[in-house]
């Protein structure tokens, strides 16, 4: 990912809301040093400077904007993106709810008109031969058909930015069979037909597929299922937040997975990461957002 970002030869301006968080500052510092980012740190300047110094980072590398509280920090970050003074918005130590409220504000927020707000992650796992894109582990609890179609579109867009021209997208279920007890399988069948008819473009889609059939060629042979995804998925679309979220967390905990992710449906990239996320993950996110900007 880093290579691709450096190849852009463009500096992106990131506005960070309530920035006095050491992991965030370290990640941003790395991106600034690599030369693909300019950072605008919004928050209590004294706190930001203190955190920088504790990490041995020169605060003069960043533009600082003084605000009193986290709400104002979020609003200011969003305002900078809206006016074009920033290309990317990033959540610092603010709570996700408060931050997203500013992003989603009807008048002053960053929502694209009629867009579905969703989340796409790119996950690197040593056990898989390529980057895997997943959606949605963070925003939509139980996506309906329209939301699933939007999610697929965002994931396809991201995979294509990574050079996967026609990503293979697996619509994940517990089995490859259509069943009355699996409501999502009906949505999946409809989406597959839409892809076949060109109503969803630039992808090879199949589902329902279980995770084995989506990502493991051996399972395809054993089960004898004919599927164009063929155990070689680029994208996994999950039926719910509660299935996607534990999937990526499981990979991070037990399979040395690294995740970068972005909110989609906004006019500018928005980085939302949990405060506990590592510096490395945050750095990946910053790089990803530059790629998508």
């Amino acid at each position, binding site marked *: 990912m880093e290579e691709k970002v450096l190849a852009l030869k463009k500096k992106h301006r990131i506005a960070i809301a309530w920035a006095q968080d050491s992991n965030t500052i370290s990640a941003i510092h790395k991106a600034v040093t690599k030369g693909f980012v300019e950072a605008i740190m919004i928050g209590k300047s004294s706190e930001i400077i203190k955190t920088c110094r504790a990490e041995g980072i020169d605060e003069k590398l960043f533009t600082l904007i003084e605000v009193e509280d986290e709400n104002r920090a979020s609003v200011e970050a969003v305002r900078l993106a809206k006016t074009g003074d920033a290309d990317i918005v990033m959540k610092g130590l603010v709570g996700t709810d408060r931050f997203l409220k500013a992003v989603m504000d009807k008048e002053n927020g960053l929502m694209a008109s009629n867009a579905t707000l969703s989340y796409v992650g790119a996950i690197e796992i040593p056990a898989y031969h390529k980057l895997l894109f997943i959606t949605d582990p963070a925003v939509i609890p139980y996506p309906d058909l329209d939301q699933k179609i939007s999610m697929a579109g965002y994931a396809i867009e991201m995979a294509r930015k990574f050079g996967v021209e026609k990503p293979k997208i697996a619509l994940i279920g517990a089995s490859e069979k259509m069943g009355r007890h699996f409501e999502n399988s009906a949505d999946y*069948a409809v989406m597959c037909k839409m892809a076949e008819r060109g*109503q969803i473009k630039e992808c090879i889609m199949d589902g329902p597929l279980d995770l084995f059939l989506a990502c493991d060629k051996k399972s395809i042979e054993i089960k004898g299922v004919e599927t164009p995804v063929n155990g070689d998925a680029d994208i996994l679309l999950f039926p719910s937040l509660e299935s996607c979220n534990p999937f990526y967390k499981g990979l991070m905990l037990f399979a040395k997975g690294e995740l970068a992710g972005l909110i989609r449906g906004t006019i500018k990239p928005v980085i939302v990461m949990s405060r506990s996320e590592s510096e490395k993950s945050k750095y990946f996110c910053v790089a990803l957002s530059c790629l998508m900007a």
Partner: protein
Amino acid sequence: MVLKNLNDLRRIVEGGPRKKLVLAAAQDQHSLGAVIKAWKENIIDPILIGDKEGIQNICLENNYDITGLPIIHEPNTEMSVEKAVRMTSSRQADILMKGMIGSSTLLKCVLNKEWGLRTGNLLSHFALFEVETYHKVIAVTDVAMNIAPNLQEKIAILNNSVKCLNKLGYRMPKVAVLGAVEMVNENMEATLHAALLSKMNQRDQIKNCIIDGPLAFDNAISLESAKHKGIRSEVAGDTDLLLMPDIEVGNVLYKSLVFFAKAKVASIILGALVPIVLTSRSDSEQAKFDSILLAAAASK
């Protein structure tokens, strides 16, 4: 094998043992005419049940020679239907046909729990058209029986029809699930059903056929039209079976084919123990004859 016209059904019938057809309430001129013609042409062996005098009078008036034809005298029409159905369920007959009686009376007997012809399957109507402007016969379902089938019912209707086509020699019939457009549209339920049926077919949950849909009528029967729209489909332009979204579309299509396109049609009811010939009183004698031919071909 593909049927080019309805007459091709004879080849199937000629290959097997002669089928027994029982005509309930046989005192009906059109039905009798068709049955006797099919008998003379060695397509079936008929058994007539009904008012003996009435049957004989019709035969006299129309010069039908019925020497040697078994007639079971039963003047009460409802009883004649019951007898015909009982005969069929006890395997003394292979095909049931409706004579001078309403369809609902006959179907009530067919669905009788003790001595009817239930199999646990949904009953559905299956029609086979010979149209000059199409390169082979085309089957259409369901244009007369199920009003607004839901997804499960559509699966049952498809299974009935595919089984019948398999019997007629189609190893993998091509099925088009009809819609107003070939695109999926959330506001058109037929297109959603079509997508689901296609996927179930891909996953081998509906077997022995190739399903694609939604297809608009033109894409289903014209390859040129499908190409024009850029549809990649094994079915488009070469459809063997059209699945209708509901009875209103089906019935209008059926009648347009007959009246405007001068199509020949044969039709039977599927899903019971045996094929049922249940043509309406307004159907031509030819249509009744062809339906008997279809029933004989489908009853092996």
